[in-house]
């Protein structure tokens, strides 16, 4: 068992899988010679050559379009979109093409493609290097959306994503890349897509989060534990399709729910999670469902105070959890 950063875990997993399966290759802007702007693909060019670590033109639509074509005929591409904020030119290729390939051909064709992309704020990225894009893509059956929060999960989920016969949007919170370290088991293991994980057990409140907010939520839960309030923290891990069972099991145990995400509030992931709980577990609730999210603003400001004002953090989450405990 090694201790790795979130970034190292992702990078090492690609190294391992490319060594195991020669159908796997990476493509994206700056992913080859320089190893990616975050260094996520470092060493792949040296080890596997220019044929399998491909520096692409600066054109997101065709990064995905090329990957779809290659995937359709048996390759296993891992496409990197340098920042999630830049994925939008490829929206049509992802949503209309990759996600619908199996359904539209009645399973005649498939699209085993992984799209890795760094997302999220908190690194002074301003409006166009901070976006959370998951809500756009969680509305597209046929496409998995995955957002790991720990180095261990990143490895198991990325292996599952690469071996999955359908397209997977693999969201990597860029603030976690170097700030989060953790134990990563040696050897091969996969974590099934579509399964949430209880990261901390508790009996008083269910807190549901993912990505960087999972860590803020765990910090908030620590604070509340010192005050005698036990928070159960559910890490969604796969954002679409959602793991309804794990969510509902926890809610039935605690009867109070807070959903936390960095993305803006309206039509965000929290809305769907709240709807599932309302439909399936209304009678188990002892309090209205709370959401702690980014505000409905067009973007995250670059400056320190603006960015801080936008982003949820452990303090804001702890305040909401305390109010919920008192309800």
């Amino acid at each position: 068992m090694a201790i790795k950063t979130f970034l190292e875990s992702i990078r090492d997993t690609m190294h391992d899988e490319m060594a195991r399966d020669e159908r796997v290759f990476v493509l994206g802007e700056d992913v080859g010679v320089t190893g990616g702007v975050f260094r996520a693909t470092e060493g792949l060019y040296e080890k596997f050559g220019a044929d399998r670590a491909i520096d692409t033109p600066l054109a997101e639509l065709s990064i995905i379009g090329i990957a779809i074509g290659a995937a359709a005929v048996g390759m296993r591409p891992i496409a990197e979109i340098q920042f999630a904020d830049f994925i939008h030119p490829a929206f049509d290729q992802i949503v209309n093409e990759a996600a619908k390939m199996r359904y539209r051909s009645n399973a005649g064709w498939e699209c085993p493609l992984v799209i890795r992309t760094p997302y999220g704020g908190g690194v002074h990225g301003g409006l166009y290097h901070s976006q959370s894009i998951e809500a756009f893509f969680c509305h597209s059956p046929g496409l998995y959306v995955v957002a790991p929060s720990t180095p261990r999960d990143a490895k198991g989920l990325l292996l599952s994503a690469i071996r999955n016969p359908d397209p997977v949007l693999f969201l990597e919170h860029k603030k976690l890349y170097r700030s989060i370290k953790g134990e990563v088991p040696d050897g091969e293991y996969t974590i099934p897509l579509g399964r949430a994980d209880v990261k901390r057990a508790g009996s008083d409140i269910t807190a549901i989060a993912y990505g960087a907010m999972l860590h803020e939520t765990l910090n908030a839960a620590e604070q509340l534990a010192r005050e005698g309030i036990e928070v159960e923290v559910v890490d969604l891990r796969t954002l679409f399709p959602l793991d309804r069972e794990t969510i509902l099991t926890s809610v039935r145990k605690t009867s109070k729910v807070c959903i936390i995400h960095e993305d803006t509030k309206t039509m965000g992931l929290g809305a769907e999670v709240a709807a599932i709980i309302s439909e399936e577990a209304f009678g188990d609730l002892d309090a209205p469902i709370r959401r702690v999210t980014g505000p409905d603003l067009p973007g995250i400001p670059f400056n320190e105070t603006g960015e801080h004002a936008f982003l949820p953090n452990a303090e804001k989450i702890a305040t909401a959890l305390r109010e919920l405990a008192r309800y």
Partner: protein
Amino acid sequence: MATQVAEKIALEITHRALGLSDDQVLEMYWAMLLARRLDERMWILHRPHLVAFHISGIGHEAAQVGAAFALKRGYDYAHPYYRDMATVLTLGMTPRDLMLALFGRQGEPSSNGRQMPSHFGSRALNIVSGSSPVATQIPQAAGIAFAIKYKKTDQVVLTCFGEGSTAEGDFHEGLNWAGIHTLPVIFLCQNNQYAISVPAAKQMAVPNVADRARAYGIPGVIVDGNDVLDVYGAMRDAVARARRGQGATLIEAKTYRPVPHSSDDDDRTYRSRAEVEEWKKRDPILRMQEYLTRVNLLNAQKIVESDARAKQVVDDADEFARNAPYPPAEAALGNVWGQVKS
């Protein structure tokens, strides 16, 4: 007399010089004719609303058969667009397959009736499933070619589209990739001069789609899209280049769509009848008949016979599809997600 003989020899050379036997050139004619008669029946079936929608390939038969004939069926890949009925017939789809799609019936091979008609796809025939947004198949075709190059086979990819698609970013990005990586892909633009109602002059400031190839470092070739042998010749050369590892070609087949864009379009709103009639004189089927008659492979009687044969095949397909069941409602729910294989 001597002149006539010399002329005949010269004419014969047209298909033989291209390496096509008499049987092959007659097979081309049959594919064109069958596509035409099938397409005409589809329009007729739409008139009393026996079917919901038809989008036509009439006028494009020479471009499509000429191109598809240069591929190795089931070995090379095709990523067609919605007018490519003659392309997919040439590659092995059947009139029954296409009629099932028109009626949206059970067992339709492209999608089991999920997609609108003319959204072709067949894993067995290496015809990649397509969508309705135009030009999306172009970078995907380059991606298939990329995989071929990686696997080091000598397969090639044919992708087709109209000139309207060449305004999309997908077209430019796909050609850019093909140029950079010297990919074995043939981009066939079937330029019928209208993007629904918008004429080519309002779509681009250059006279030819083929001119755009220069920007991506690949050859751009213009052919007479109503002359099946002209298309075949250019396509055969492009396929040979691609198989040799010399990369992509953009072929622009200049043609015309003498019918509305689809069963929901009325082309009288945007072009004159005189223009349409003028182009009908250059109909690719007529021109093929003239050529084959000149080289003594066809005569009036054989034309009548082949028409009768085509009608039989179309009747059979029509009846077969008309009487086929719809997929059960629960069939709409499946094949969203696949199963993980080890």
